[in-house]
């Protein structure tokens, strides 16, 4: 009896030891951050990633859910396609990407580190990416390591790679993958504006508004759509005539005084435009808070123009009924239609990083990009010259139509985005000069707001 008891004890001990050592081994392999460092060092093949992704099972995709047709595409096309790869896509539709950036940073601050967060994948660009990067909240340089990375230009010697490597002038460091390339395009309501009166420059816009006061407005900065409008005004009014070129530098490189000198004519133009904007005649111009509000004004003929990021915004607006029936695209402002890309990125504390990579690889495929273009009217993020003829033809066939302009005309009027460090200063200057109507020399205002920004 005693013997059996002690033997049982021994066996128990042995099995406990075995369990402990086995789980120790598993832990070593699955230690938080292990997958990240192994993958980023190139020690892991794609089959291993997909195997781990299937084990993880789910990918929590946080993205702006304000577009029905994008949501439909996610639910009807992307989710089944990823399910076929063994990954369940969990779409979390948000109203503002900033909220998700807040969640990630708050989690990290609360000590929820690698693989302990809640966000796997975020649709992001510009300031929000800059914030994540600044707070060291990004997963790593994965963008050129996926099978579908071949669809993108990563060679820095090719200037066309800049759209993949710079996000609002901030180096992406391959920490985000281009998803879509957008352009700031304005639409015009042909029910009110005949072709020969359609403005192509800011001077012509002002002339039109002098004849038709109140029929234009733009989204209020610091919303990125408002910032973009202001940037295109600044490009067009660059006193040196060099357009967007100086705005590619960072604030440190350019300096406050030089920035103020460059901005002066553009800000003067915006000031002179104020009384001609919607509601400006009563002394209180109305700036919509977001693109939905502007769409409503446009649909209701309160304004005759609607500017936003969207190569196919006009088409999407017509099929969803958010644009008036006679809406057409216009080439405005000539040569300064800002183009940028938006991206997919993985936060540092993503709980399912392998599944996130598999999802990004899927989103970067020719098939996914073509169907997204066709169904959701989202331009492709990949670079067409990297594709073979067959794939390029698939993309071309999927493109929705343009109205009143051609893709060639849109491509011919591209301007780059403004450096993210300048965007902050420019938006703060707009708030000071236009909103608060501070009556000081521009150089002083720029110096003041940049001081407040950098504390």
């Amino acid at each position, binding site marked *: 009896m005693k013997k059996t008891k002690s033997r049982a004890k021994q066996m128990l001990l042995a099995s406990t030891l075995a369990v402990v050592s086995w789980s120790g081994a598993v832990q070593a392999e699955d230690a938080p951050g292990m997958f990240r460092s192994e993958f980023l060092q190139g020690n892991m093949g794609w089959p291993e990633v997909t195997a781990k992704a299937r084990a993880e099972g789910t990918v929590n995709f946080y993205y702006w859910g304000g577009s029905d047709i994008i949501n439909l595409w996610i639910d009807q096309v992307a989710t089944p396609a990823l399910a076929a790869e063994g990954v369940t896509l969990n779409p979390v539709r948000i109203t503002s990407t*900033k909220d998700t950036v807040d969640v990630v*940073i708050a989690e990290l601050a609360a000590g929820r580190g690698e693989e302990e967060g809640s966000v796997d994948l975020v649709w992001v660009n510009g*300031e929000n990416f800059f914030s994540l990067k600044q707070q060291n909240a990004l997963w790593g340089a994965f963008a050129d390591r996926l099978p579908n990375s071949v669809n993108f230009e990563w060679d820095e010697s090719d200037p066309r790679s800049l759209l993949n490597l710079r996000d609002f002038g901030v180096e992406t460091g391959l920490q985000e993958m281009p998803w879509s390339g957008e352009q700031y395009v304005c639409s015009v309501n042909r029910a009110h504006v005949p072709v020969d009166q359609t403005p192509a420059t800011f001077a012509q816009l002002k002339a039109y508004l002098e004849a038709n006061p109140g029929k234009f407005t733009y989204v209020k900065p610091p919303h990125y759509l408002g910032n973009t409008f202001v940037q295109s005004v600044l490009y067009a009014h660059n006193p040196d005539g060099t357009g967007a070129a100086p705005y590619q530098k960072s604030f440190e490189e350019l300096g406050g005084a030089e920035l103020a000198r460059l901005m002066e004519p553009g800000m003067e133009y915006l000031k002179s435009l104020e009384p001609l904007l*919607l509601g400006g005649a009563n002394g209180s111009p109305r700036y919509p808070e977001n693109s939905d509000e502007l769409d409503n004004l446009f649909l*209701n003929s*309160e304004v005759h123009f609607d500017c936003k990021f969207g190569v196919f915004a006009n088409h999407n607006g017509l099929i969803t009924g958010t644009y008036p029936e006679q809406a057409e695209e216009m080439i405005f402002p000539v040569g300064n239609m800002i183009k940028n890309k938006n991206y997919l990125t993985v936060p540092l504390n993503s709980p399912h990083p392998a599944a996130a990579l598999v999802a990004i690889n899927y989103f970067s495929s020719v098939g996914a990009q073509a169907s997204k273009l066709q169904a959701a009217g989202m331009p492709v993020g990949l670079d067409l010259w990297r594709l073979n003829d067959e794939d390029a033809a698939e993309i071309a066939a999927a493109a929705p139509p343009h109205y009143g302009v051609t893709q060639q005309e849109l491509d011919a009027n591209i301007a780059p985005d403004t450096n993210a460090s300048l965007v902050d200063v420019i938006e703060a200057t707009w708030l000071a000069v236009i909103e608060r109507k501070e009556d000081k020399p521009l150089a002083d205002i720029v110096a003041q707001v940049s001081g407040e920004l950098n*504390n």
Partner: protein
Amino acid sequence: MMRTASPAFMQNLRDVVEMTPLLVVLLGLFGGALVLGLLQSFGYAPWFGINEFPTTRYFERLWLSSDFWFSLGLTLYYAFAATLIGLVISVPLSIALSKRFKASRLFSALIRLPLMVPYTVGIALALVMLGNGGLLSRMSAGLGLIDDPSQFVQILKTHGGCGIILVYVWKQVPFMTLNLSAVLARTGDDTVEAAMVLGASSRQIFWRVTLPQIMPGIVSASLICFAFNIGAFEAPLILGGGYPDTLPVLAWRYFQDANYAFQLQGMAVVVSLALVSGLFLAAYLQGYRRFERARGRV
């Protein structure tokens, strides 16, 4: 001695135990947030890489700008106006509803309807009806009264705040009425009838009998509504006149900015707002206590 102390002690213990869930929530969630907010407004946010604690710079920057005081004025104006108008409507309404008349039940049920509807729906209704792209403006344009909908008289999105006050009143009148009706039902008709028998006019009855009787209801209802109005941000954001915004909207804008340095400035706004509303509510309660003391009720 021991025998009497022990039950009292047990009672105290029981009270504490019963209060614990509430205390945990109050101290843990509310108190914690308050402390965090205070710390941030004084420059403590190491999780954003900012730690200048203690600095009063954020308050200085805020309080030294004239726009802050304009924003504060707007915030107080919307809150006061909506609460006052709500009271002026709901006091007579609750008195009328306390009497039985034909269809009085149906009527009081109808009045309670907005209680069930969220504020945002009320805001949406205001936009749909009164906005420059709304039903009224389109109808006037359709009837040829104006050339196009944008010429319709601007009701929403002005600093006058008609839309904001309207939504608050629409939503809060049923709440106030309900509160006052409860007080009226409790006090009963006896004193009113006695006053009538003694020959008081209806005006005298209202000012001398009914109003003092429902004062506790008025105070609690207006306190709750005022506290809500001063801190609410959806209505001023959507229906307000834009810059300068009310303080809650100003704070929201700071929190929304992609630059995290602004979060601390936003916290300074929130703390200032809490200070102001706390002061007003304390003064109001103090005044009410004095009133009650004068009447010998406390």
